[in-house]
């Protein structure tokens, strides 16, 4: 019960805090809209207008990913800057349960991206928002957000030891966008990329959303996204325990 309360309270607190950050919200809304705009023009001018809704969904998930990654990079760094990292580590609550709500909150903020991108596509490019399976889509959205948030948790855990976590998170934005097939079908990429893409929740979350929206059976992808999320929890918990101990041992927790 305490765990649920801690995660829920932390999630709500971070949602409120992040929603008040003009920088964060604008980044979450603006960047995917720009990426979507470029994608729409490219697909339209390239003679693939039928792929616009496909691209809109990809740009929307990119927005969630971007927001998650920005938040994961910042999860440790912001606490360092504010001088609260040591206090949080010293608190009796497991540090994992302190960081988890933050990464979940950052991916939840990605809902702004999802709405903004789909709305922008509808208003500016007349892309119809017609869902083949609305119920499955309604399930796939939170599952994708959860999957991305937990992947963000893995990154946040590894960032404990890294002084310039933000730079690393900035760098990771494009590779993941590329290898998870958000805007480019994976079949176009070299064959060795495919197994890499399977390890990322955005790949499966994206497939689930596209199947739900464009037609198909999204349930297997939804299940895989949840399964990957569970694996991420295990990895993040182990990483966080190890890196937290190492940072405490070497007195590098508060390094900026």
């Amino acid at each position, binding site marked *: 019960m305490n765990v649920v309360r801690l995660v829920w309270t932390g999630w709500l607190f971070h949602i409120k805090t992040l929603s008040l950050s003009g920088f964060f919200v604008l980044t979450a809304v603006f*960047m995917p809209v*720009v990426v979507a705009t*470029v*994608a729409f023009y*490219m*697909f339209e001018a390239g*003679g693939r207008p039928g792929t616009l809704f496909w691209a809109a969904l990809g740009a929307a998930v990119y927005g969630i990913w971007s927001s998650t990654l920005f938040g994961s990079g910042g999860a440790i760094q912001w606490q360092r800057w504010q001088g609260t990292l040591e206090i949080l580590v010293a608190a009796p609550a497991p540090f994992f349960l302190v960081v988890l709500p933050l990464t979940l909150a950052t991916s939840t903020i990605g809902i702004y991206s999802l709405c903004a991108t789909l709305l922008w596509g509808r208003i500016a490019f007349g892309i119809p928002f017609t869902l083949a399976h609305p119920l499955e889509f309604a399930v796939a959205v939170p599952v994708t957000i959860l999957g991305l948030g937990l992947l963000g948790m893995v990154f946040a855990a590894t960032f404990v030891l890294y002084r*310039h976590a933000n730079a690393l998170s*900035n760098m990771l934005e494009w590779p993941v966008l*590329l290898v998870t097939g958000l805007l480019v079908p994976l079949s176009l990429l070299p064959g060795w990329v495919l197994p890499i893409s399977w390890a990322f929740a955005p790949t499966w979350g994206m497939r689930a959303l596209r199947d739900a929206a464009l037609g198909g059976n999204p349930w297997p992808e939804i299940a895989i996204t949840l399964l990957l999320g569970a694996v991420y929890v295990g990895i993040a918990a182990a990483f966080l325990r190890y890196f937290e101990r190492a940072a405490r041992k070497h007195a590098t927790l508060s390094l900026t």
Partner: protein
Amino acid sequence: MIGWLRLFFVGGLIAFRALFNWISPALYIPTMLLGPIFQILLFAYMGRYSGLEDDTFFVVGNAVQISCMSAIYAGTMTIANERSYQTLAPLLASPANRFALFMGRSLPVLVNGLVVSAWGFCIGWWLLDFDPPASSLPALAFVVAVSVSAATAFGLTLGSIGMRARDVFLISNLAYYLFWVFCGVNVPLDELPGWAQQIGRMLPLTHGIEAARAVVAGGSLSDVSTLVRTEALVGLSYAALAYALFRFFERQGRRSAALETY
């Protein structure tokens, strides 16, 4: 004159090293070198999928555009961080020549932008189907240098705004990504609506990217002289605006004792 040159070159370099936050390898490599690789790959593959243009189109567009990583962010930081680090007041209290002090900061930013852009071209050549004729390289280098100079002037304009604006890095981020849409980086300019084309023509890089593509396609420097001149003119206009804003905000900040307030 020696003092002026020293302020321009040495002062500019010291300011760059002190104020450009991303200069340490741990930040520079992931941000300025590794990230852009995937930007170029992503848009080249999107181009292949959409059937819009070939790899060369996207390599040239993005390799020139990634110079903005330096032009915009380093340009902004080398001016605006004086205020963040609270060194602006002592700096402006000094009798240093303002023109040398301000413009000296552009040179390291410009050189850095050229390095990043050259890196982008190398990546395109190495990983994608981009193989420009060797004879086009000197002209390409010249066009890219003019484009990066213009973008640097734009970055310094943002830096000057940072002497007054509360959150200039938000503006920098917006500007960086808007270049994708308006400057013909990934979408040919004539595919955009008329108003967007007009905005693009007022921004740096637009004419430079067009000229660079023409040069890579086999055009000579004289074939693209109008585009290069226009790009240079856009850059000079932004440089003049940047300096005017710098002096304006300096005077305003001194008068209202608000140099370092937020």
